C-alpha cells in the first residue's frame, strides 16, 4: 500500500464525511426540515456514485486493483454492486420523505444511519479478506438493527429490532465460528490465500464444517430457508421504508459477499458445498412461496416472497459458472427494481404510520389510479418472471446456469415455484382490478411517484432491451468468475 492508493477509497471517505455532516447539520438549527435532509442525502449519494465511477477508472489492471495489503478490491464486480447499492439507497431515501413528514422522529439521524449502512455495504462489495468483509457486514447489520427500531415508541418496531438484533448477532457468531475453522485449516483469512491453500486439500471435515457454518451465517443475512424465521416479523414490524431497505439493498449486499466468498475463496470445494446449498435453495423456494400464499398482510407476503427470491439467487451461486454469476448480477438488478417499485406503491397507499399493509387496501386501485395499478402489475409480473418484464431475463440466466451445472432438478423446482408465486401475486392483481374500491387514498408525493416510475422504467426497459445490462454484467461477472472457471486447479 502506498498513500496513492487512498484514491480508491475516496467514495467511502466522501460518504463517511457526508454521513457525519448529516448528523452535525441539525445542530446548526432548522431541525424540523425533513425536506433539506432528504436533498442533502440525495446529493451525497450522487457525489458518492460519481466518485465510485471515477475511482474505478483509475484502476488499470486486476493486480493493481487489490489494495491495502489485499484487503480491498476495486474491480468491475465491486463497482457494479456499489452502484446498485447507491441506487437502491437513493430510492429508499426518496421513499422515506413522505413517511417522515408527519412523524415526530428526526430524519437526520435516520439518513445518517442509512448512509453508514451504505458505507458498510460498499466495504462488503470490495472486501476480499474475511476480516474486512466481516467488519463491513457488521457495520451494515448494526445500522439495520437501529433503523428497524427507529419508530421506538411503536411496540412493533422495537420488537422487530429486538428479534433482528438477537438472531442477527447469533448468526454472526455462527459465521465467525465458521471463519475461525477455515482459518485453522487454510492458515489465512485472505480469500485468495484460502483458495490457494484449498487447492492442495482433498477432503477435510473441519473445513467442511467451517464452510457450512459460514454458509449458514450468510443464509441468515440473505434470509434463505432454514434461517428465515426472523424475516416476516422484522419486515412487518420495521418502518416500511426500512423494510424496503432490508429486502433490497441489504439482501443484495449479503448476496454480493456470498458470491465473492464462494466464487473466489471456496471454489475448490464446490462439489462438497453445492449440494448443501442446493437443498437450502430448494427449501427457500418451497417454504417462501408456499407460505406467502396464506398471508393477507402485504408486508409479510413480500417477506415470504423475498425468501423465495433468495432461493433463486442461490441458484447462481450453486452453479459456480460465469453464467451463474451473470444470473446473480442480472437478477439482483431486476429483483431490486421490482421490489422497490412495489414498496413505493405500498407507501403510496399509506394512511397512517402503518397502512397500505393489507391486500384489501389495494382493492379498486385500478379505478383510482390506473397508472399505478398498471405499474404494480408489471412489478408483480417481473417478480414472477413473465416475459415482457425484466424478471424473465434474470430467471432465464439463473435457471439456465443451474441446468448447465447439472442441477436440473433444482431448476424444475424453481420453475414450479415461480408458477406458485404467480398465484399470490395475482391475488393482488385481482384485488386491484376486480374488487370494489376502498377509500384508501393514493399519495401524491412527487418523490414516491418518481421512485415508482423509475422502477417501472427499469423493469420494462431491461425486459425489452436487455443488451446494455447484459453487456455490463458480462464484464463484471468475468472478474470474479473467470478465476473459478478457467483455472480450476491453478494454485495461484
Amino acid at each position, binding site marked *: 500500500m502506498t498513500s496513492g492508493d487512498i484514491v480508491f477509497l475516496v467514495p467511502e471517505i466522501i460518504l463517511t464525511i457526508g454521513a457525519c455532516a448529516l448528523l452535525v447539520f441539525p445542530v446548526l438549527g432548522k431541525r424540523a426540515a425533513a425536506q433539506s435532509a432528504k436533498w442533502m442525502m440525495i446529493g451525497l449519494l450522487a457525489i458518492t456514485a460519481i466518485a465510485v465511477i471515477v475511482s474505478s477508472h483509475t484502476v488499470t489492471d486486476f493486480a493493481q486493483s487489490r489494495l491495502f495489503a489485499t484487503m480491498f478490491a476495486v474491480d468491475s464486480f465491486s463497482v457494479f454492486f456499489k452502484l446498485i447499492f447507491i441506487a437502491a439507497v437513493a430510492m429508499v431515501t426518496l421513499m422515506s420523505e413522505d413517511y417522515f413528514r408527519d412523524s415526530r422522529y428526526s430524519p437526520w*439521524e435516520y439518513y445518517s444511519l442509512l448512509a453508514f449502512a451504505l458505507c458498510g455495504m460498499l466495504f462488503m462489495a470490495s472486501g476480499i479478506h474475511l476480516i474486512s468483509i466481516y467488519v463491513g457486514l457488521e457495520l451494515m447489520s448494526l445500522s439495520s438493527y437501529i433503523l428497524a427500531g427507529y419508530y421506538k415508541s411503536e411496540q412493533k418496531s422495537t420488537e422487530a429490532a429486538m428479534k433482528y438484533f438477537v438472531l442477527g448477532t447469533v448468526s454472526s457468531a455462527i459465521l465467525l465460528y465458521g471463519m475461525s475453522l477455515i482459518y485453522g485449516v487454510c492458515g489465512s483469512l485472505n480469500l485468495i490465500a484460502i483458495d490457494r491453500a484449498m487447492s492442495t486439500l482433498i477432503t477435510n471435515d473441519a473445513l467442511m464444517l467451517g464452510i457450512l457454518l459460514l454458509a449458514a451465517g450468510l443464509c441468515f443475512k440473505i434470509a434463505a430457508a432454514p434461517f428465515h424465521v426472523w424475516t416476516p416479523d422484522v419486515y412487518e414490524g420495521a418502518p416500511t421504508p426500512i423494510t424496503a431497505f432490508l429486502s433490497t439493498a441489504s439482501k443484495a449486499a449479503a448476496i454480493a459477499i456470498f458470491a465473492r466468498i464462494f466464487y473466489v475463496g471456496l471454489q475448490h470445494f464446490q462439489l462438497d458445498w453445492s449440494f448443501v446449498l442446493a437443498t437450502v435453495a430448494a427449501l427457500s423456494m418451497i417454504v417462501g412461496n408456499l407460505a406467502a400464499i396464506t398471508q393477507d398482510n402485504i408486508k409479510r407476503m413480500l417477506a415470504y416472497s423475498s425468501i423465495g427470491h433468495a432461493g433463486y439467487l442461490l441458484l447462481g451461486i450453486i452453479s459456480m459458472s460465469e453464467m451463474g454469476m451473470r444470473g446473480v448480477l442480472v437478477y439482483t438488478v431486476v429483483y431490486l427494481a421490482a421490489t422497490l417499485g412495489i414498496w413505493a406503491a405500498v407507501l403510496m397507499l399509506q394512511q397512517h404510520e402503518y397502512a397500505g399493509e393489507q391486500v384489501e387496501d389495494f382493492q379498486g386501485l385500478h379505478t383510482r389510479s390506473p397508472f399505478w395499478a398498471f405499474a404494480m402489475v408489471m412489478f408483480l409480473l417481473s417478480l414472477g418472471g413473465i416475459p415482457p418484464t425484466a424478471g424473465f431475463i434474470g430467471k432465464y440466466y439463473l435457471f439456465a446456469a443451474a441446468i448447465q451445472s447439472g442441477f436440473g432438478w433444482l431448476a424444475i423446482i424453481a420453475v414450479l415455484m415461480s408458477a406458485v408465486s404467480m398465484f399470490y401475486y395475482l391475488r393482488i392483481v385481482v384485488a386491484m382490478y376486480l374488487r370494489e374500491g376502498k377509500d384508501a387514498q393514493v399519495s401524491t408525493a412527487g418523490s414516491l411517484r418518481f421512485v415508482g416510475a423509475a422502477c417501472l422504467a427499469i423493469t420494462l426497459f431491461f425486459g425489452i432491451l436487455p443488451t446494455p445490462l447484459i453487456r455490463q454484467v458480462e464484464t463484471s461477472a468475468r472478474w470474479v468468475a473467470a478465476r473459478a472457471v478457467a483455472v480450476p486447479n491453478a494454485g495461484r
Partner: protein
Amino acid sequence: MEALTSGMPFLVFLIIGTIAVAASILVVAMRNPVHSALFLLLTFLCVAVLFVLKAAEFVAAVQVLVYAGGIMVLFLFVVMLINVRSLPEERVMSAFWKGGLAVGLGLFILFAGVVRPGVYHEPKGNERDLRTQTTYRMRKVRNADGTVTERRVGRSRVVGNSEAIGMVLYRDYLVPFEVASLFLLVAMIGAIVIGKRELLAEEEESTPQFILDRAEKEKEVKEVVNGR
C-alpha cells in the same frame, strides 16, 4: 525447574478451563441477571488467562479492559436500570429446556467431532513470530546483468507482542480498522437514538427551560429598573 515450566501451562489450562466452563454454565443457569453478569466476568477473566498461555498478551489485555471493564459495566448498569422484580418467570427443566439442551449437546458433538489431529493446518514457525515486527522498504537492487530494479525488502525485528500487533494493525489492516471506528460511531448514535427518553415534539422544538427562566429573570430585573 524444566519439568515444572513445561508442565505448568497444561495444569493452568486445566484449572482455568474448568473454571471458565463452570462459570459459563452458571451464566446461563442463574435466574438473577446480576449473578449471571458476575459469572460472565469470571469467564472473561479466565479466557484472558488462556490467551496469555497462547502468547497473545495484547489481546488478553484488551479482553480484560474492554470486556471486563467496558461491556460488563454496561450490562450491570442496565440490570440496575431495569427492575429486578419484573424478571420473567421461567420454569426450570421444562420440555423447552430439554430441547435446548439437546440442541446444545448436538452442536457440541458436531464441533468436537472435527477436533482431530491432521485436520488443521500444520503448525509452522514458532512463538517468536507473534512478537516479530517486519518493516518493509523499497530498496534499489543491482541485478546480475547490471540493471537496477526496486524491490521490497523486509526486515524483521523481535519486539513485543503489542508492538508487533500495532504495526500490522495500522499498516495491513488499516481499512478494516477504520471501518471498525465507523462501527463504534454507529453504535454510539444507535444507543443514543434508541435509548434516550423520548421528548415531546414541543420539548424538542422549544428553547430549554433554563434559558426561558433566565430571560424571565432578566425581564423582571429590567422592569424593576425601569419602574424605579
